[in-house]
């Protein structure tokens, strides 16, 4: 349930990113965060032990007890920030010429791409090592 809620949050974030003129990041967010991460979470949940019905009931009861402060906290913070805070005017910025995203991604931020490749390889290696079944002494 929480994994699906997270996917919904990702979809909302995608819409906000479209609104903020960032369509490529939005598509990335939708495909990777709403898709891949949900798959990872659902796989992890299904690989781990499912709880029995009485346990689930008890857990839900405890969870509601622990989480009911959250909407109150969110509401109070939103009210405080919305009504009592004086918003300063943002400083004027030097206008830049419109740079194409592709130029930035492949030329200006080339090192980032290299870093991303290294991180992905490190992640793949980590997952392989973590999920590798331990071989027994016969080598099987």
């Amino acid at each position, binding site marked *: 349930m*929480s*994994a699906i809620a*997270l996917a919904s*949050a*990702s979809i909302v*974030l995608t819409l*906000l*990113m479209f609104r*903020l003129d*960032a369509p*490529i*990041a939005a598509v*990335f967010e939708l495909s*990777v*965060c709403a898709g891949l*991460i949900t798959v*990872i*979470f659902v*796989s*992890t*949940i299904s*690989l*781990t*032990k499912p709880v029995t019905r009485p346990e689930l009931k008890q857990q839900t009861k405890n969870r509601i007890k*622990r*989480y009911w*402060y*959250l909407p109150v*906290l*969110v509401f109070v*913070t939103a009210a405080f*920030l*919305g009504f009592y805070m004086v*918003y300063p*005017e*943002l*400083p*004027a*910025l030097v*206008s*830049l010429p419109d*740079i*194409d*995203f592709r*130029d*930035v*991604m492949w030329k*200006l*931020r080339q090192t*980032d791409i290299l*870093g*991303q490749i290294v*991180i*992905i390889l*490190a*992640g793949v290696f*980590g*997952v392989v090592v*973590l*999920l590798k079944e331990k071989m027994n002494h016969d080598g099987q």
Partner: protein
Amino acid sequence: MMVSDNSALFWIFGVFTVLLAICGFYCILVTRNFIRTLIGLELLTKAVTLLVVLAGYVSGRTAISQSLAITIIVVEVVVIAVAAGIVFGIFKQIGSLNVTKMRNLKG
């Protein structure tokens, strides 16, 4: 430049970002389930991503902010994948996803 027009928009989205970060922190602090801890972490990262995209929009540098947001998303996915592997490993060791039952490191 559209800075003064965007000032209000920046603060509205800024409030939303703060609320998202509060939800993430609360989730990490309150839950005792490993997977929910990861979900809290994910919410925090989403707040950061939104703030980066928002800053790019307000300052008129959307291309750079998008590039940075994509880097953040890639890092986030790798972190979550490895953390999910660690959670699965811990589950195989202790047979539970409850944080309070992990006492192997207790000294």
